[in-house]
């Protein structure tokens, strides 16, 4: 295929992907309350954002939920990945693997509805849990576990199983092998899984809407309810702040990851050369 055509095609796709984000950022500095008409540069929407206590409370709630649900996701996701990669044969393995991919492929509305109906039945029997922070947390952790499992599984598959065997030959107990060999090797994958599930939770509106109770509105829920009513420049300001934070986090984590990867390769090379001497 033609090279110039290829380059043009790629540029067009990138423009398509980035145009909305760039517009959001530019118009967050617009003085006019009409979101789409540019008058002059101003920070008034950032001032409005700083005074918007509803939105700020929602941001805190979202951060809390995202942090804890990401921790839970990485925990259960790692278990799932180990169960599916380390044990090739056990009764119900197919069931586990299809259950773990259910949240990935099911539309959000179905995951949300089914979880809510389960929690309502549970509450009917046990008087627990009340709809609110905990139920949103569970929903996000379920979705996150499925994603974390994929990330950790792909890392486990490319990991050299001989390292574990070597540790066992040298007399490590299974848990010691995990703590001293597998876990350090897995760490970059766990960090990516944490970041991914944090973002998923911070972004979710459908599951939260189903699972939240009165008084618990996450940031996406507040933004969604405002966006339904019409255009609102404060949303542009929120968007710009989130984009700035996310970009910094993504760049920092990719620097960290490439550094960790280089460090790991250096150590492996060092170990081989030590062994050969």
């Amino acid at each position, binding site marked *: 295929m033609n090279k110039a055509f290829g380059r043009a095609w790629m540029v067009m796709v990138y423009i398509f992907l980035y145009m909305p984000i760039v517009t959001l950022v530019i118009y967050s500095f617009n003085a006019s309350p009409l979101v789409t008409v540019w008058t002059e540069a101003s920070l008034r929407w950032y001032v409005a954002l700083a005074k918007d206590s509803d939105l700020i409370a929602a941001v805190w709630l979202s951060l809390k939920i995202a942090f804890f649900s990401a921790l839970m996701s990485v925990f259960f996701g790692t278990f799932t990945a180990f169960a599916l990669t380390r044990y090739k044969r*056990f009764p119900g393995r197919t069931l586990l693997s299809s259950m773990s991919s259910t949240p990935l492929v099911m*539309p959000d509305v179905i995951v949300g509805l*089914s979880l809510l*109906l389960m929690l309502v039945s549970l509450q009917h029997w046990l008087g627990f849990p009340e709809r609110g922070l905990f139920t949103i947390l569970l929903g996000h952790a379920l979705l996150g576990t499925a994603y974390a499992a994929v990330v950790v599984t792909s890392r486990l*598959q490319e990991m050299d199983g001989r390292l574990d065997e070597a540790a066992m030959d040298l007399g490590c107990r299974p848990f010691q092998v995990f703590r001293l060999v597998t876990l350090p090797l897995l760490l970059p994958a766990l960090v990516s899984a944490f970041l991914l599930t944090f973002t998923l939770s911070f972004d979710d509106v459908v599951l939260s809407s189903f699972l939240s109770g009165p008084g618990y509105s996450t940031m996406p829920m507040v933004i969604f309810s405002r966006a339904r009513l019409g255009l609102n420049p404060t949303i542009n300001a929120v968007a710009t702040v989130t984009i700035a934070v996310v*970009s910094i986090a993504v760049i920092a984590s990719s620097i960290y990851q490439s550094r960790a990867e280089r460090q790991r390769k250096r150590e492996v090379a060092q170990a081989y050369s030590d062994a050969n001497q």
Partner: protein
Amino acid sequence: MTNIFNYLRNHIPGRQIVIGVPYLWFLLLAAIPLLIVLKISLSEMESTSVSSMISWTQGWPTIKLNFASYIFLSTDPLYFETYLSSIKYALVTTIICLAIGYPFAYFMARSPKHLQPMLLMLIMLPFWTSFLLRIYAWKTLMVNNGVINNVLISLGIINDPIAMMNTPFSLLVGMVYSYLPFMILPLYANLSKLDVRYLEAAADLGTSPFRTFWLVTIPLSKAGIIAGSMLVFIPAVGEYVIPELLGGPDTLMIGRVLWDEFFSNNDWPMASAVAVVMILLILLPMAIFNKYQSDQLEAKS
């Protein structure tokens, strides 16, 4: 005695816990909830709660199945039309994503090796910023006095604003925009592993570049095409946020109907029945996707 303790310490934990923990987690949060949806779809609404399916008469349990929701679902043509139109929009989205994403992934896989990680990162980066905010941004772009219309009018290309918002067009733009990366990533993963020697062999045997593309490249990337299409089609069928923000009153989507049955009409059995039929609709594409995934895993190991 010590032998038994040693045996327990070495054998009881590990395997059972590693398998048991995720099993219970997914059983409780993924499998049982879906069974409850099935159960509630076969009940009826009694003022504020759902009727119980099992009643006790003279010490014997009797199971009462109520098909009212399904009967209503099949007799009211609105539901049928909505399912059909959801599938239609999801299908069109998938085809457009494939048409844009395939050439993109192809060119990306052919670009200089040292640039590829950056190109890939640029595809993933929007994914890290809020999906909701990006959909909202399209609203800013597409409303009548929005950015696109303003630019076109000031350039003198059009005189009156084009009505884009709340139409099938704006819905499709939002869907293609959101799901394009899901199409590109598996396609790129597949095309970047394509053995160039096959293409060289075809060229040596005198095949034209176009025929080579059609007869060699496309068949070899079938797995990527299937994975990408399923990753776009399945979630697109049940999409709620995009039609709610960018669609109009006449762009029917089943995710929105489910939401309204639940939140506006408070009809849990009806919402559940809508969900059950939706699951049946995406079961086939899901099975294809799962089979593809397990084939991939087997090929890897």
